[in-house]
């Protein structure tokens, strides 16, 4: 299959930047810094261009000029007030914009967050013990004859209560309280372990993704950029380390 020049160029750039970033695993070096700065610059540049095109042109300028939607100037005006932060004498005007944004943001987020993350989660935690009665209201529906049926729910209930107790500092953690707090620590450790395990999996997935691309770009149809750029990176690292060893740091 014949590949276009842009695809081949993209493969060379992607391979080079991947290898330069991975060279940090050996030691900090100028190749890594080049790739790091390029990454930050390109992603910021892309975001600015996309935002300008989508927000300024598509959502503001074109509707005003093409459709005469002059009411859009109100949110634009509120947004522009934020820029007064850069003019010390007019900086007080920015408070109106911030007040509007904080007010709307908090008004939207607080009730929804309480409902979604606090009330729903409390409901789920006590669900193994309590149920909603057919005519409304709450009923105790835990089956003492078959405790295994709600085993997971009971473990979660014990975990939530013991962890909350561990963070309850108004009473001394002694006697039975110490046992509950220690159980809380145990549950926290298990949770941190699970989170760490998933984090390791995620990082390994990223490495697999990069190596998959490097394997793909070692193909002759791309001009074998992986092979040539590995040689270039290794050679550069050797030269840099030799040059570094001839100039010992000043005491």
């Amino acid at each position, binding site marked *: 299959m014949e590949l276009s020049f842009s695809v081949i160029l993209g493969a060379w750039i992607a391979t080079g930047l991947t290898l330069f970033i991975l060279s940090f*695993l*050996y030691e900090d070096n100028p190749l890594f810094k080049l790739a790091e700065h390029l990454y930050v610059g390109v*992603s910021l540049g*892309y*975001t600015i261009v*996309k*935002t300008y095109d*989508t*927000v300024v042109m*598509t*959502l503001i300028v074109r*509707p005003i000029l093409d459709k005469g939607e002059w009411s859009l100037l109100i949110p634009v005006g509120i947004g522009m007030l934020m820029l007064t932060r850069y003019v010390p004498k007019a900086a007080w005007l920015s408070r109106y914009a911030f007040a509007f944004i904080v007010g709307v943001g908090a008004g*939207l*987020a607080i009730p*929804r*967050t309480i*409902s*979604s*993350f606090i009330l*729903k*989660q409390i*409901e*789920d935690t006590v669900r193994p013990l309590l149920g909603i009665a057919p005519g409304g209201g709450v009923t105790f529906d835990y089956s003492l004859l078959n405790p295994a049926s709600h085993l997971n729910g009971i473990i*979660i209930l014990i975990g939530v209560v013991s962890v909350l107790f561990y963070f309850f500092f108004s009473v001394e953690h002694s006697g039975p309280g110490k046992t509950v707090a220690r159980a809380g620590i145990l549950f926290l450790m298990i*949770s941190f372990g*699970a*989170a760490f395990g*998933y*984090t*390791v*999996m*995620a990082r*390994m*997935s*990223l*490495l*697999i*993704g*990069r*190596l*998959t691309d490097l*394997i793909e770009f070692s193909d002759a149809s791309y001009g074998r950029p992986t092979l040539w750029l590995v040689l270039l990176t290794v050679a550069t690292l050797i030269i840099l380390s030799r040059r570094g060893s001839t100039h010992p740091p000043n005491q």
Partner: protein
Amino acid sequence: MTFAERMLRIDRRIIFLVIGLCTLVPLLFPVGLPIKISSEVRGVYDYIEGLPEGSVFLLSLDFDPASKPELYPQAISILRHAFKKNLRVVAMTLWVSGTGLADQILTQTAKEAGKENGKDYVFLGWSPGGSAVILNMGQDLYNAFPADYGGKATKGLPVLAGVQNLRDVTYAVSLGAGNPGVEAWYVFGKDKYKFELGGGCTGVIAPGLYPLLRSGQINGLIGGLRGAAEYETLIGQKGKAVAGMDAQSATHLAIIVLVAICNIFYFSLRRQQRRQDGMGS
């Protein structure tokens, strides 16, 4: 210096090399370890499988190229499944830096399935506001996205026939790498506008989303590369995720062995030092 001491002070670059080799070798010589399907991934698959033809399926690709290895295979598999089921696909992103990648994923899978832009699927692109976009879509989808990614007016597109807001969406899946992502879609979308929601995420944020799954706030969760591999297996189109699972297993094994060995050396060294201290006193 004893062997245990030398092992505990091992150059970290040797560990990087071991992990690198454990990743590279299975990628070059795949073994094909079996992949067990978890109930959380099956939740998303079964729901899409049960949707009638022509249902409105909203896919929010809330990630950028930094999370591509994990979420790209998930997005490809879900889109392949949705196109195979002849669902009306409405795709979008809440991450401005992921717009180009999302467009590429959708265009590639639609072309593969022979689907037509505007009729079978639409890419709405990105709109500013994060979570506020979801609320805006809940009120009026055409107000949040007056035009699609290509600049064509969304009103009148056959794929959006009968769709006014999020209440008309049959099923939504957010593939999130952070905030805004799955949580935002639940808080500002499903909880308010009552549509069914599934999630896909990177491995890092998966543990934080399990409480939502357990409480039924989301009906399924595809976690990381493993979740993507499970979905690829379910749809019978093995891709990049399945190819990476051997490497994933090998690296995990290497890490477990390294942790175990280092602990053994640590405890043996401590015991040795205690014995020496005892002899000295």
